[in-house]
């Protein structure tokens, strides 16, 4: 049986076990009534039936390919087995190709190997099906035998459920570990080919020129400084837009606006936050960038059609709602007594805001700005669509620059072997990105939490 039909069979048996056990438990007629409800016993039986079988299926899918491979290798004729490992590898590849294409090979030796392989595969499948069936039936028997007064089925089921809950909350940890490991391993492989120093401090970035193996290390074409600088430039432009506008929006909405206006303005800001970044990218590339270029042309400036300015401005607008909602929370948390005190001393409202509320809320605002910066650095689609590919070492916002995220995307969407330094470089860049944003996030979360505690 194929894995899918086997899975369906196990699921069906589990369901059958549930209903059978439910009937038994409902009609139980011992000296004392059962301690748990029928569905507790039924669930326990279903778990006994399906869980071990599914576990076995999982183990089998992991082991099976290796076992079959071994079957071929032990059957290899001696004149081939005695040759170098490369020849054997080539030979095995041929066998696998024949198996996959389901054709008959002219070479009788290969054909015999294919036949042996298919026989082994068939046997393995029969054995798997049989063992799964035995486990299922055994599970049903065990489950049914547990419908007794002395068995606390509810406690058992709840314990299992709790284990499941713990497992699910562990997914967050597993994801983080997965990110760190996957990025780190590939980055280490990259740093074996290119030195860390060249990567961190080199000023030329041209991964295209270093395809030939001999020149990877010496060419120094993996210098990431232009990318870091480009990322910082675009993020800085974005922050120049987002921080003043976002902060003023938050101040106006929380201190001046009437409740009615707030009720209208907040959803509009949420709309701005909910627009997908690819839409912003389209707008930046097709509307804002040509507009800036034309305006620049009118006043005699030469502006690149993929200028950092266009990407930065649009990214800034994207981050406005983020800054404003974070600042809004922080400003609201400033105690009313501080406002009242300042106003009672004769300060105007704007003086109260500038001299009392903002200084009091500053740590929280800084935390919010850091979070916003981490978002700007990690933002991908706007820069992929609106910023350039050329790694220019410049801080002129009117020229085209490239960023870390743009390079990750371009390096990984091409067609090359997975372990070329070009693809591995993307993971090294990913590692830098992850570390930077992690660093910013941790500081920001820490600052915000400290600040909250101060006024609670």
């Amino acid at each position, binding site marked *: 049986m194929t894995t899918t039909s086997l899975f369906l069979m196990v699921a069906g048996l589990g369901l059958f076990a549930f209903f059978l056990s439910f009937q038994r438990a409902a009609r139980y007629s011992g000296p004392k009534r059962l301690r748990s409800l029928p569905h507790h016993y039924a669930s326990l039986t279903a778990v006994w039936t399906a869980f071990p079988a599914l576990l076995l299926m999982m183990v089998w899918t992991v082991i099976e390919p290796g076992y079959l491979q071994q079957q071929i290798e032990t059957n290899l004729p001696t004149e081939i087995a005695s040759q170098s490992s490369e020849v054997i590898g080539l030979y095995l590849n041929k066998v696998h190709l024949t198996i996959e294409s389901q054709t008959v090979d002219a070479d009788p030796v290969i054909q015999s190997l294919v036949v042996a392989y298919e026989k082994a595969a068939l046997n393995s499948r029969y054995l798997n099906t049989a063992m799964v069936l035995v486990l299922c039936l055994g599970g049903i028997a065990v489950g049914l035998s547990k419908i007794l007064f002395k068995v606390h089925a509810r406690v058992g089921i709840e314990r299992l459920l709790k284990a499941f809950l713990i497992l699910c909350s562990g997914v967050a940890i597993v*994801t983080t570990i997965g990110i760190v490991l996957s990025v780190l391993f590939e980055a280490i492989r990259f740093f074996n080919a290119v030195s860390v120093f060249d990567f961190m401090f080199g000023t030329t970035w041209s991964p295209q020129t270093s395809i030939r193996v001999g020149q990877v290390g010496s060419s120094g074409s993996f210098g990431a400084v232009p990318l870091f600088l480009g990322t910082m430039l675009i993020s800085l432009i974005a922050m120049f837009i987002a921080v003043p506008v976002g902060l003023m*929006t938050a101040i106006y909405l929380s201190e001046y606006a009437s409740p009615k206006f707030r009720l209208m303005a907040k959803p509009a800001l949420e709309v701005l936050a909910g627009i997908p970044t690819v839409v912003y990218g389209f707008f930046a590339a097709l509307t804002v960038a040509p507009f800036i270029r034309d305006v620049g042309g009118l006043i005699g400036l030469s502006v690149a059609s993929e200028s950092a300015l266009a990407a930065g401005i649009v990214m800034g607008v994207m981050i406005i709602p983020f800054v404003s909602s974070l600042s809004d929370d922080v400003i609201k948390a400033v105690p009313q007594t501080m406002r009242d005190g300042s106003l009672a001393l004769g300060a105007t409202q704007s003086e109260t805001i500038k001299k009392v509320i903002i200084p009091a809320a500053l740590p929280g605002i800084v935390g919010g700005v850091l979070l916003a910066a981490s978002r700007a650095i990690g933002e991908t689609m706007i820069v992929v669509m609106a910023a350039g590919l050329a790694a220019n070492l410049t801080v002129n916002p009117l020229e085209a620059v490239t960023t870390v995220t743009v390079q990750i995307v371009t390096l990984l969407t091409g067609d090359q072997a997975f372990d070329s330094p070009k693809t591995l470089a993307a993971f090294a860049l990913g590692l830098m990105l992850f570390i930077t944003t992690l660093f910013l996030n941790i500081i920001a979360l820490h600052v915000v939490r400290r600040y909250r505690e101060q006024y609670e």
Partner: protein
Amino acid sequence: MNNTEIVKAGLCKRYAREKRFQFYGKAAVMSGFVFLIILLFDITTKAMPAFSITEILLDIPMDRGTLNLSTDTRVSIDDAALAGIDYAGLVKKALRTQFPEVTKRKHKKLLYRLMSSGAGFEIKRQLSNNPGLIGDKPLSIWLKADDDVDTFYKLERITSRIKTEQVEFIASLKTQSRIRTALNWDFFTNSDSREPEQAGIKGALLGSFWTLLVTLMVSLPVGIAAAIYLEEFAPQNRLTDFIEININNLAAVPSIVFGLLGLAVFINFFGMPRSAPLVGGLVLSLMTLPTIIISSRAAIKSVPPSLKEAALGLGASHMQTVFHHVLPQAMPGVLTGAIIGMAQALGETAPLLMIGMVAFIVDVPGGVLDSATVLPVQIYLWSDSPERAFTALTAATILVLLAFLTVMNAVAITLRTYFERRR
């Protein structure tokens, strides 16, 4: 001068400053609105041309001789015979009859380029639906024009892609009212194509559907389970703290890093197929998980403790209390969070680029293992295309995507208000 006078002297200036500050605040709020309006207006105007398509009325000869079929009317026409017809040739022939004055080879070529390369397929479709059309009477049919003609006719602007001879052809067609614009249904019923006039978003829509289905199936149960554990059962210890730090952190990790994770773990380590909605859905569910966990926790926390205490007091176990009483009460809040998370996942592009969902795929995906692309990636792909007509298609796809997001968010908001009112 006493203090009162000093204060009074500065008062005018201070009030002016107050007014200015308020004005800055208003300007900041307004600038956000203005940008939003410009963005929506710009995209809507760019999208409009994509919803209509230019068609040209041609009289296609349908006699058996021209179709290269057996002239014996008793011989029935089977599918093989229909497949053997040169449909593109029929279109060309109809064009030549329409414009008998065109004789030069160069001009003929320009003439042929008036029509979309898909025009032949349309005739084929009509014929296989109704073989009775074959006869001496020519078939008058509206066929799609080429995208350059389409752009020219709709915008009435001469571009470098259209030649003066073609402009004359179009003018001649117009006087005979043989050219018109019609609603572009193919935009919704076709898949991606290299020809803008034949390209549609059906493949991307279904790709998005399968991807979101996987995301929902994975992230909702896992997210709710994690939220229940952290809010109801987790002891105050280091491990719990660590889990919480991880969740908060994952919420702020750039989405492209999740794409790297998907590429390294799901595709290279587990050997899952590239460009499949399964992998895309898994990556997106890892990405939306923090959103769902955080909002579910808030919803569970807001269930009144009296409810829980009543259930516990009547002898329910902790697990029963949670699953029978707390979770149903928290469900609207949980679902609101889930919908918002799904909306985020629907608009996400970058991680899907990493796992190869950027391929040019013509087939409509029929399951989670087929190669597919999704709406935002389709937007990205089309926005890169040089043909002008693709810009309109991109903008139209954006409108469709925004419509979906609006509906999802509207449902979430309705659910939230309903939930709050019941409290």
